[in-house]
């Protein structure tokens, strides 16, 4: 139950930060708009924009909770329920954002595999929340975390898609599935993308939980 309460209240918190929420929703749109004339590029940029927006939002939500989390632990909540609830909320927001933009793409673009376009945006949203959470766990200060995320997205955007560097980036999965959605080809692209997403998700969620298990650990004292 704690997980669901944390998720519900995290969603409510984000919903009240109206200006931040509007900027988060708008960010992928600017990415999309600048390359709207090219279907493939616009979808790839949009997907990356969704990933950047949700991971940044998650980073700030994680950092904003630093004062509350130790008290929740002391009151009886487990690390998994606190972090899991927050990830659930941010992933839900990411999925909603992805579905919204998929609707825009479906109306505005002529895409070869529309279902795969939906999948690439969902994959981006699913990876983004744990990625923002992991960076927030490793770099507790907001500025450092935001700059780290900017670096990740910049490298992802600029790296040669065929090279090793691009494959090591967290959103490579979305790019791979996006290629299938726009250019067609073998379904292997989709499977490779899903496998990459699965591994990235596990690393980010596992890393986040490991860092917070250590940071929010409570000393076990014997009873008097």
């Amino acid at each position, binding site marked *: 139950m*704690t997980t669901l309460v944390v998720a519900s209240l995290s969603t*409510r*918190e984000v919903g009240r930060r109206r200006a931040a929420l509007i900027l988060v929703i708008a960010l992928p749109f600017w990415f999309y708009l600048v390359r709207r004339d090219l279907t493939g590029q616009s979808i790839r940029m949009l997907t990356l924009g969704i990933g950047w927006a949700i991971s940044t939002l998650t980073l700030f939500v994680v950092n904003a909770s630093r004062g509350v989390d130790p008290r929740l632990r002391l009151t009886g909540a487990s690390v998994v329920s606190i972090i899991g609830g927050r990830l659930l909320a941010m992933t839900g927001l990411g999925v909603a954002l992805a579905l919204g933009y998929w609707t825009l793409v479906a109306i505005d673009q002529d895409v070869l595999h529309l279902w795969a376009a939906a999948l690439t945006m969902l994959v981006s949203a699913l990876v983004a929340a744990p990625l923002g959470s992991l960076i927030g766990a490793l770099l507790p200060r907001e500025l450092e975390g935001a700059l780290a995320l900017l670096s990740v997205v910049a490298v992802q955007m600029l790296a040669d898609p065929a090279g090793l560097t691009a494959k090591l980036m967290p959103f490579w999965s979305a790019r791979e599935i996006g290629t299938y959605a726009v250019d067609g080809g073998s379904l292997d692209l989709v499977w490779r993308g899903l496998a990459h997403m699965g591994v990235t998700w596990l690393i980010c969620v596992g890393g986040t939980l490991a860092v917070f298990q250590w940071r929010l650990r409570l*000393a*076990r004292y014997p009873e008097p």
Partner: protein
Amino acid sequence: MSDWPSAFEAELLRLGVQPGRARRLADETSQQAAESAATPGDVFGPAHLYARHLMAELNAPAAATTRTRFEAGPVLLSLTGVGKKYRRQTVFQDVNLTVRGGEVAAIVGANGCGKSTLLRICAGLTRPTSGEVRRVRRVGLVPQDGGTAGWLTAEEHFTLFGAAAGMVPGRARSTGVHLATRLAWRPGRKQRAQQMSGGTRQKLNLVLGELHAPDLLLLDEPYQGFDQGAYLDFWQQVFAWRDAGRAIVVVTHLLHDLQNVDHVLDLGER
């Protein structure tokens, strides 16, 4: 109820309070009610009764300590030879303290001598470098500042902390609101923590620390931003906890608090 502050001030004057002080108390009381988005009458009741109650509290702080004391219960917190070092710097060492149920202990000392660190060690959030800590499992911590989520209302905080303690949302909210009234505070339904004054936020912190009915309460200068009435309400609440058999450890720098406590631990100069 717009003349409530005037009636309150007039009653204070009638009870012999100096005009300047009466005006200040009336202003503080009105401000406190405004923070709760309610009229003073709704929060404090009739003006003349609250004025008498407040004066009784202000005039008799020492009398409160002479109330009937219950026998101290079992040991709920025990520190033996506890020390803390950050790299090569010793914050404190060889700290000993035993607090039983029904007792209040105060930790005093200069700024930077490690009072808050010691409280975090008692909570289990920081590990001691040396020594032994024994304590009961159910513990509540009230930090000096922070510890709340700025975008959530008081009731949402009750729901969140209640869920952490395994309480259903409805019960957590009603318990929180009930505990808040003991501090003469009625939480506003729409007021977020970041919109509260420092004193009201500390009341929220106090309620959150107590929500899960801990046996041991660790309070780190919890009265920051309290007005005089809230400060007295706070000590009344500490006595109520003590009389209910709980152990309370308070970090304080106010020397006149020390007459109210059973143990004083001076961490000294750094």
